[in-house]
C-alpha cells in the first residue's frame, strides 16, 4: 500500500519522532509505514488521517488501484 505520509510530514516540517509522539507509537512504526514495509491497522490509519486533517483515502492508496481501475475500464 502506497502512502503520502512522508510528504505530509515534510509539509509540516515534523520529524518521524514528532509524528510518533503525536500518534503515540514508536518511531520505527512511523518509519515502517512511510517506507511501505508495514500497513497500519484501521484505527492507526484513522489516527494518522486525523493528525494530518485528511481522509484515509487521501493518504493511503492500494497498490492494485491502477490495475483494478484499468480492468474495470476494460469491461466497458
Amino acid at each position, binding site marked *: 500500500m502506497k502512502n503520502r505520509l512522508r510528504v505530509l510530514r515534510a509539509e509540516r516540517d515534523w520529524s518521524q519522532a514528532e509524528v510518533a509522539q503525536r500518534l503515540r*507509537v514508536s518511531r520505527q512504526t512511523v518509519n515502517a509505514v512511510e517506507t511501505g514495509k508495514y500497513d497500519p491497522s484501521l484505527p492507526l490509519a484513522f489516527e494518522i488521517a486525523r493528525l494530518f486533517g485528511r481522509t484515509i483515502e487521501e493518504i493511503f492508496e492500494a497498490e492494485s488501484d491502477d490495475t483494478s481501475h484499468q480492468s474495470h475500464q476494460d469491461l466497458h
Partner: protein
Amino acid sequence: MPSEKRRWLGCSGASVAQFVWAGVFCAGAVASVVLLRLFHLGLPLRIGVLLLAILPGVLYILTMIRDIRRLDELQQRIYLEAISVAFAGTFLFAILYPTLRQAGFVPAMSPTEVSVVMVALATVSYLVAKRRY
C-alpha cells in the same frame, strides 16, 4: 504508548520490572533447588520453598503481558513473530530430541538447557523481525 511510559522500556519493549522479576525468578529457582537438596523439609516448608520460584515467575509473566499491551501494533507483531518462532522451534526440538540424541547430534540436555534454546530462538527471531521493519 505515552512517551513517559516508553522511556522505561528497553529496545525489546521489556520494562525494568520485567528484567527484575526474571532475575528474582532465576535466583528463586536456584535457591529452591539448593534448599531442597540441603534440607529434608516437611510438606508445608517444601511448598513454601517452591513458591520462592513460582511467585516471581508468575509476576514475571504478568509484567511481560503488561509490557506487551503497552507496545504499539508493529512492536506487538515483532514480539508475536519472535514468540511464535521460539514456541514452534522448541516444540519441534522437543519432538525431535530423542532422534537427535540417538543419532548423536545433541548431548543429554536438562529442561533448563532446553529453555536456553527457546530463549536463543526468541532472541534471534526478534532481531530478524525487527530488522525486517
